[in-house]
């Protein structure tokens, strides 16, 4: 009986933690989704060596934001899956 109560508490605690995790992840995933949809792109009329060096950084930034967006979306999805499975 005591173990069941303890097990029930742990279960509820895990559910609450997962709910909080999902609630906190959702806006982050949404922001990253927007950032990927509207990536920073240097003005077309900027040219020269500085522009070329910057362009390489910008490509890397877009890739990093893309990775972050996919990771956040995956974390949110697995959190929701865990919640559904409880």
């Amino acid at each position: 009986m005591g173990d069941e109560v303890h097990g029930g508490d742990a279960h509820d605690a895990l559910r609450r933690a997962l709910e909080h995790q999902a609630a906190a992840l959702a806006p982050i995933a949404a922001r990253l989704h927007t950032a990927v949809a509207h990536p920073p792109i240097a003005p077309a009329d900027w040219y020269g060596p500085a522009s070329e060096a910057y362009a390489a950084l910008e490509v890397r930034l877009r890739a990093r934001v893309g990775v972050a967006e996919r990771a956040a979306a995956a974390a949110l999805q697995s959190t929701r899956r865990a919640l559904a499975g409880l």
Partner: protein
Amino acid sequence: MSDRRGLLGVPPPEPATTDPALGGPLWVSPAVRGGGTGTLVVATDALLAQAERLRRLHGELAADAVALDRIDALGVAALSAGSPSAAAAQSAVELDAARDAVRAAAIAAERTDEDLRQAITGYAAAEDDQSSAMLRLGSLIGILAGPAIRGLLLGALPIVLFARAAGLAPGDAGATGPRLDGVKRWLLDHPELITDPVFVERLRVAVMSVDDAAGSALGLPPGGAERIAAGHGFTGVEAGAALTIAAGGALGLFRETPVSLERIATTHAAAAPTGAVERLARVPEVNQVRIERYDAPGAPPRYVVYVGPTETFSPVAGEEPWDLTSNVTGVAGLSAGSLRATELAMHDAGIRGAESGRPDAVQFVGFSQGGLVAARLAASGEWNATGLETYGAPAGNIELPDGLSGMAVRNTDDFVPALAGPQLDHHLLQVERRAFAPGSPIPTAEPAPAHQREAYVATATVIDAARSDAVREQVARLDAFTSDYSDREGSSITVMTYHAERGGKKTLEGATSGGSTP
């Protein structure tokens, strides 16, 4: 002065707009606050907007990384360790991966932002170095050209004396007109020569070298003329302008006079202007000063003073105070007729100055010479200037107070602002744009097409569409100065229109000419 457009206090008809697409991008140099010790930034509006966007993105990603750290503290990983839920454990692993990825993206955004800002400040520093080198070179050329100028002047002196004796010199009836017409015709035929940033920069250097060339022509050692001018309170381009006035005085040119003015009309406006285009449209012509008084219940009045452009380019002072004499006198930092006339109008409109102890807030807007007058008034300390917006003004040598809202707008292919030398003051947002990009057709209907109102209307249109916070914030602050009042219940806008003349024929007179020739 028979033309009385604006008689009813309404703005002059909207000019035909030069197609904004003919021009180049907007170049922006935000105000350097705090005594001018900050970093000077020069970039296109689009690039500044990009830098601002990157900074925001970095801020958001850094905040997200912190938020993900907090999620970790919720303890899903610890709780799932003793739980049969494999999915919960997996979510904890995915969370770790997301946190690392967001942190890496935040670092990349910061690095990209820093790199872009370094490129921008590096450009500003290189431009500053280049400008300094050009001015040193110009000074050297001025010194070296001195003896040749002396020879030319000595050779020309008998011709000038003969011309005066024959009644053909400037100031003599019938002589100035045809000569200026010839110059105008030549300028109309060759718009591409003067509508060129390279020409503008060379002119800027030449203007700064006037004192060196004059000193050398007089046989003074290098720097001699500069020291003498400084002894009389003139430095930089002011010294050159003062020397021009002194030299021209002997030929009857650039002689200041008393001024007088009258209020032509007092009317009411339905709404405050919104945006740069609407404000520029309110800058008057012919009737040179327009003052708008904004009243709101329970609040002290606010004023916007609009000052018009040069009306005549004759170097001989006639009836019109908005003339070349006022331009040169104004650049020299002396009391130009147009400046005194505007102050008379401000007093008549009831604007309380600093001496009152309770000065009214004033925003100045001016085009061409009007911008010069507006900048001088804003810098004078005699008025509670809160905002300044100038278009094509030869006013780069005027040191403005810190904290002004607004902007100084110049077309880089407009030579008129270059007549005041390089842009020395950076307390105000500087906005530049080439009115006619390479390959664009240049109008031939008016001389100096990049200085025409239509060309600045096109630039103002681009300003109103600017994406950078640096420009948008200043446009919003200028808008807010008037809309803060006009949006209130029971507010009103009174418009006073003034016409000034040289001499004392009008009802409101200036006490003195104030334009002592150095």
